[in-house]
């Protein structure tokens, strides 16, 4: 909003000598880069550059969506990948725009900061010769005070209104009072822009020194989790984080409560855990959505929940194994899908050898509340009438070869090649809690019940408070900058020309230094108090 005031144009460059040319070029580019026009263009570019990130799936937001995009657009996807379309906000072109913007910002703010500090230290400039040229000026009025006394009174009034004020005695015996207010506007502007730098640093360091991981934590003392990388389902460490830096804690889910509206909309979730930190004693803590569990050097966020059926498989030799397998919810009513894989079963006790063709896998759905209409989806998210629908497979689960597959579905490749066979037909076998299902080879599967599980996101960002502090200070600066007004007023006290000794003629002028429509009113009020104070 600085309309009245603009930085003076740089002096014309001297005639270029070859040795100076590069210097001049550099200086000109710098000037160009730090101009407001460039800042505008860069801001605009940044806005445009952010758009693709909302159009294309972003790996950092949802990696699975990127995979789906690859399947849906096999031709386009590799190109997008090359252009950074799936990682827009980490791409070099996005970074180069905001880095340039911030270089420009520094180049812009530093000179202004210096100017501002200087302006704060020098006295308010003296009054111009004639007030008639100023946007605001008063009529003359006379006072019986001496010029010095009148100037003193007015200066005091102005100081009381928090103007920076300076009284000067002129050669002709008159006095001038110069006053300026609204320095906070510029201070605010500088604070705002500097805070933006703090935010950038906070965000950047958070990216380097932060880490996060996700983990499905099944209820029960035997299912605890400790904060080491292999125990995460997926994780990502910042470039400057070492696995050894991770804080030392273990948590066990002891209780999970969920309440629902009759429509099935969730009302509340709450997870109760037993935590040990740095080898200390176990404590019981509860946390919920929006209210994470804050530990030393990490916070644990509750993102979701579900059910993990407990299944006991007793093989043809009578050996049994129990597994608790989380089934992932696929809809809001907690219709859940998952698998139970038993690779180490049906081992002939005589030979002790594992037969790869006799591994067992069960795949299917868990419905916490079976729908009355017999559909394959759950009718309510709580376990009002639970049932498990499973299909059994026998053969090679494919766990020993190749890349680790998903733990939530069977290896479709093995099924396709016939290495893993469906042995129970197309209709899934329904099971209620407590049911036993006897398979064709006499082996048995028992559905013992379920346990809750919680989907946790565990994170640490060491500089998020810096980013927050930057943002808050920035907002403060912004408000000062946008809502403040810088203005100057001058009063002149001339010795009276009349015979009355000690008489003084007074006159005032005012200059709003920024677009400030309220200024005439303020000026009028100042003049009025001045008149009243100088009878």
């Amino acid at each position, binding site marked *: 909003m600085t309309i009245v005031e603009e930085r003076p144009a740089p002096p014309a460059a001297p005639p270029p000598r070859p040795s100076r040319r590069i210097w001049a070029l550099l200086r000109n580019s710098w000037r160009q880069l730090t101009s407001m026009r460039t800042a505008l263009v860069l801001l605009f570019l*940044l806005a445009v550059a*952010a758009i693709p990130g909302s159009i294309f799936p972003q790996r950092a*937001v949802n990696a699975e969506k990127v995979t789906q995009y690859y399947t849906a657009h096999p031709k386009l996807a590799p190109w997008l990948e090359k252009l950074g379309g799936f990682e827009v906000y980490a791409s070099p072109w996005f970074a180069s725009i905001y880095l340039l913007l911030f270089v420009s910002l520094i180049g812009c703010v530093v000179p202004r900061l210096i100017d501002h500090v200087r302006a704060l230290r020098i006295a308010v400039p003296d009054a111009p010769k004639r007030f008639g040229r100023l946007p605001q000026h008063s009529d003359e009025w006379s006072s019986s005070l001496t010029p010095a006394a009148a100037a003193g009174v007015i200066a005091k009034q102005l100081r009381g209104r928090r103007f920076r004020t300076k009284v000067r005695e002129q050669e002709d015996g008159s006095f001038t009072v110069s006053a300026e207010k609204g320095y906070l506007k510029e201070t605010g502007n500088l604070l705002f822009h500097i805070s933006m730098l703090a935010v950038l640093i906070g965000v950047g360091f958070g990216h380097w020194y932060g880490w996060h991981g996700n983990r499905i934590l099944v209820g029960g003392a035997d299912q605890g989790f400790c904060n080491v990388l292999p125990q995460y389902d997926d994780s990502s460490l910042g470039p400057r984080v070492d696995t050894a830096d991770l804080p030392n804690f273990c948590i066990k889910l002891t209780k999970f409560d969920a309440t629902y*509206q009759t*429509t099935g909309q969730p009302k509340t979730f709450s997870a109760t855990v037993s935590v040990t930190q740095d080898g200390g004693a176990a404590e019981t803590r509860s946390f919920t959505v929006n209210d994470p569990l804050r530990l030393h050097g990490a916070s644990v966020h509750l993102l979701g929940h579900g059910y993990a059926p407990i299944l006991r498989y007793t093989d043809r030799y009578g050996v049994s194994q129990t597994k608790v397998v989380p089934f992932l919810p696929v809809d809001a009513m907690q219709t859940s899908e998952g698998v139970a894989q038993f690779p180490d079963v049906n081992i002939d006790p005589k030979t002790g050898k594992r037969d790869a063709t006799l591994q067992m896998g069960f795949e299917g759905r868990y419905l916490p509340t079976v729908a009355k209409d017999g559909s394959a989806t759950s009718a309510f998210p709580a376990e009002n009438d639970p049932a498990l629908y499973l299909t059994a497979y026998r053969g090679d689960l494919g766990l020993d070869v190749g890349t680790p597959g998903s733990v939530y579905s069977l290896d479709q490749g093995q099924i396709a090649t016939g290495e893993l066979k469906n042995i129970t037909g197309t209709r899934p076998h329904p099971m209620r809690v407590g049911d036993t299902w006897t398979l064709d080879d006499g082996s048995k599967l028992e559905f013992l019940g379920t346990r809750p599980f919680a989907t946790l996101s565990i994170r640490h*960002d060491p500089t998020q408070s810096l980013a927050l502090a930057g*943002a808050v200070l920035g907002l403060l600066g*912004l408000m000062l900058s*946008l809502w403040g007004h810088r203005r100057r007023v001058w009063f002149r006290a001339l010795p009276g020309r009349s015979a009355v000794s000690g008489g003084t003629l007074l006159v005032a002028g005012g200059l709003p230094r920024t677009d400030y429509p*309220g200024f005439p009113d303020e000026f009028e009020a100042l003049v009025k108090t001045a008149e009243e104070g100088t009878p």
Partner: protein
Amino acid sequence: MAELSNQLVAAAVLAYLAAMICYAGEYAFGKRSHIGKAASRPARQLVGAGAPVPDDIVSDDPPPPARRDRAELTGRIAVGFNALAVLLHLGALVTRGVAADRMPWGNMYEYILSTTFVASAVWIGVVLARPAVRHLGLFAALALVVMLGAASLIAYTPVGPLVPALNSYWFIIHVSTVIVGSGIFLIGAVPAAMFLIRNGYDEGKRRFPYTLGKRVPEAAVLERLTFRLHAFAFPLFTFGALIAGPIWAEASWGRYWGWDPKEVWAFISWIVYAGYLHARATPSVKRTVATWIALIGFVTMLMNLFGVNLFFEGLHSYANAG
């Protein structure tokens, strides 16, 4: 209650339509001059600091008094309808909140209902403070009718409780400030567009839409109003979208910023409006150019209100309703 809320929305739309028709009537009959005269009570201040509106806008040939009175009356009726519409709109929000037993900001439909309410309330505040800008009412009412209609047709969601992720006081702070900020930005686009039209008209352009500029307030008044509204909304939006939002996101999802589509578009809007403020602060950039940037900001706001909810899928749970 939910039923009542829906009926109130419909009634509000009708009242906005009625206001629109009356504004249009005044617009057709009237001339600027008498509006200026009707406005010649001291101009009161808007939310920030106020600028006196020059009411010395003189028209070259005053219309015959009868016509003038009719236009004047129509204009007053328009403002009456407009005020009624704001009350109905408020009623719709309140009943919706009562029906749901929470703040009425739980999903996209309610969010739009609230944002347009703020826009409308600010607008009526501006009109009452400065009758000189009343002629813009036609366009403000039109914008509101379109947005409310779109909300009811595209985004309607039955009353439901909040999903637990939305159940936090930071949510209330975040959403309320974003709603107020966005509402003011939205209505700020009306004087912005009219400034461009009026300015074009003043430069001698006589095609549509510049012909609309014939009877709106002076370009400088419109421009300043535009700036004031945006300068007021910007810090609010900054607080709501870039401070309170991330604080809530940190507590809820564990990260304060994740480039979810809603966040991306809030960021874009913010950057564009920052660009507007910069452009306006730079003497070498023309005011028309700056105002175009504000209008681009408006488009990004619409994208945020409607587009993101419809086209993209994100974490913002209320974004998926509809």
